[in-house]
């Protein structure tokens, strides 16, 4: 029995799960400590509210408001659960976007831009095609695919400049993000899609339900009544499983990952590295576009179009989701749900205590910070093991597993794509 356990312990996946759980725990603790410090420093808040906020931070998903005597009550709350699943939908997809790019050696910080482009095209198609002539489900499909395509094309740009001009994809992504923010504002400024019916809402686009287009509930509203949940979450999960199959069970996935671990070695092995870099950015962009499409096609979400000064947080939140899931597509489903749970928790804290929802962003940032070096430590561990292996097997192991040849002096292992032949890249 203990032998089995230690075998399980030695597995790479187990280590990843454990390290992610530790990150989550530390992140939650940091959040609790900040609440405590704030409560002690500010005499208006009081210890009672500190204790309430901390309890909500850990158990907010099961919060059912305040019972008799103003005591916090906990239990199964279908609205919270449904909202969590609803908000998890775009997070799972942007998380997949970042994760797939990361597996192929690219850091896709361009998800916000791809998400915005996806939003713009989804909304234009969903609101622009008259449902009198075209049936609403067909419009839905067209808008969904249009969003994916827009995201994919926008994602291609950093991929292209990376592959052919050797520009660092992080910088290209940041630039395309802000270009997208301005382009989207430009598209909707003065367009017919602006919500002019409700005067109180300036700078909002109509909901897609204005045109009768919305995602089917697929029976989820029966399980979680009164919440925002719809069939989008099921579509997101299916996409995640498909991505898992693509990355781990197909030749294309193998090629993409090979390019990620060492672009030059992959080319030496006869893999079209440039094509694969563009392709993986296109897939990543498409996933971000899908995230936007599913979020805005739900029929109950509105898009604030005057967005040129800020980028959508959902895009950036893909990064923590992917890091928490260690870039595993199946893990992304759970990480996405966890992130949206924090979102719900933040809402509960805002509603029920003097604290506010930004505490959940602090927790997320802490988790990202931790994952920055948990990754490095893991690399160190596996690196050491490999060194021992290569001593005994005289390098045959490396060739068998398709690993990179030993790096030369100017390239640091492991080649993650950010630094190649230093200096060539801008």
């Amino acid at each position, binding site marked *: 029995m203990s032998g089995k356990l230690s075998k399980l312990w030695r597995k790479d996946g187990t280590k990843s799960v454990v390290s992610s759980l530790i990150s989550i725990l530390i992140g939650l603790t940091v959040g609790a400590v*900040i609440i405590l410090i704030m409560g002690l420093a500010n005499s208006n808040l009081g210890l009672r509210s500190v204790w309430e906020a901390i309890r909500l931070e850990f158990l907010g998903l099961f919060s059912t408001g305040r019972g008799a005597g103003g005591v916090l009550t906990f239990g199964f709350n279908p609205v919270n659960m449904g909202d969590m699943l609803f908000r998890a939908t775009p997070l799972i997809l942007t998380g997949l976007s970042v994760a797939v790019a990361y597996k192929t050696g690219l850091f896709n910080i361009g998800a916000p831009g791809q998400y915005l482009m996806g939003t713009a095209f989804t909304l234009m198609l969903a609101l622009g095609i008259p449902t009198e002539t075209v049936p609403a489900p067909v419009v839905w499909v067209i808008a969904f695919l249009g969003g994916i395509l827009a995201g994919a094309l926008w994602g291609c740009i950093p991929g292209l400049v990376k592959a052919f001009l050797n520009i660092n994809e992080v910088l290209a992504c940041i*630039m395309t993000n802000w*270009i997208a923010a301005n382009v989207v504002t430009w598209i909707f400024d003065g367009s017919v899609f602006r919500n002019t019916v409700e005067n109180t809402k300036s700078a909002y686009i109509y909901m897609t339900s204005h045109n009768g287009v919305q995602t089917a509930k697929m029976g989820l509203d029966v399980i979680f009544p009164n919440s925002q949940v719809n069939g989008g979450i099921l579509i997101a999960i299916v996409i995640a499983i498909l991505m898992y199959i693509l990355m781990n069970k197909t030749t294309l996935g193998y090629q993409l990952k090979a390019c990620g671990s060492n672009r030059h070695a992959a080319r030496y092995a006869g893999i079209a590295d440039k094509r694969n870099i563009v392709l993986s950015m296109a897939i990543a962009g498409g996933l971000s576009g899908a995230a936007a499409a599913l979020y805005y096609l739900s029929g109950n979400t509105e898009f604030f179009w005057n967005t040129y000064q800020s980028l959508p947080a959902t895009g950036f939140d893909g*990064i923590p989701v992917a890091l928490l899931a260690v870039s595993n597509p199946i893990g992304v489903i759970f990480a996405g749900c966890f992130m949206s749970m924090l979102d719900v928790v933040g809402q509960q804290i805002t509603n029920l205590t003097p604290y506010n929802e930004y505490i959940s*962003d602090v927790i*997320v940032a802490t988790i990202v*910070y931790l994952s*920055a070096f948990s990754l490095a430590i893991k690399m160190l561990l596996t690196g050491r093991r490999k060194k021992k292996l290569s001593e005994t097997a005289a390098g045959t192991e490396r060739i068998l597993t398709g690993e990179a040849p030993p790096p030369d002096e100017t390239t*640091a292992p492991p080649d993650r794509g950010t630094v190649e032949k230093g*200096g060539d890249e801008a």
Partner: protein
Amino acid sequence: MTFLIQQTMLYAIPLMIVALAGVFAERSGIINLALEGIMIFGAFIGVLFVNLVQQAGIFNAAYEAGNWIALQGFELLAMLVSAIMGAVFSLLLSFASVNLKADQTIGGTALNLMAPALVLFFIRIIASQNTLQMATGNAAGWFMIQKSDFGYGRNEEMGFFGSTFIDRTYLATYVCILLFIILSVLLYKTRFGLRLRSCGENPQAADSLGINVYKMRYAGTTISGALAGMGGFVYALTTANCSANGDVAGFGFLALAVMIFGNWKPLNIAGASLLFGLFKCVAAAYTSIDINGDGVFLLAELGISAHFYRLLPYLITLVVLAFTSKRSRAPKAEGIPYDKGQR
């Protein structure tokens, strides 16, 4: 013309100083993607300091008496505080990337996520809204240098030089320019600067000559953090009426673009930031810019959308990168954690 120059300076100077912040980090071998986050944090700290000092009433007497020199001192103090706290905040990045050899891109992203979250969490509790403002008055009343400070009357002119560079300006702008020059000299003409740069090019060689690479990288990132924090406050002071709302409208990322556009060299960066500042200014105020003073608003009559001017800096950066990427000289060892045992 006066308006155009003043507005351009307003945008260009924070960009310039934050881009230099990026240079210090990258020249020492650390990619500082967290410029945006540190700016947000610095802006918050500076505004909070101003707010608290105002509440304590320390400078109220000087304000009542119109003692503008004391108020400038207050401004400098706020800049100093935001610089110190910016440096402290950046230690999170240095610790992760130097001591723990973490992925610098992710570390920077973490700081970029952390800063607005923390800042908004505090602001909401302190101010019960999403913006923290000065306790009393406004930035122009407290900190702007006016011609009346020099005994000029309402209808008297200061001349072109005076009205462009003295009237209605902030001392912070000139402090930033001065710091920019001093630090550029430091980077290129002193032993410390040479050592710092060597750690970004070939840390192994630097180490073999007895230079402590870890210390140098800490120094580079800390200077970077201080400059970015100060730049954040200067941005909040001069363009946002001394208020903080957990957002600097992508200025930190724009500064990164300026840094790359300027090829990691201070003089080019100064030029690039002026160019970018000009675009920002044109986008913000193109309908009211009268270039040669003949009453014709040329840019407004061209009929190009403001959105186009806004996205132009980013587009130009991308295009310039595309053309110069072969010649572009990023520090060689940037982004690679230094490992003593490595060949």
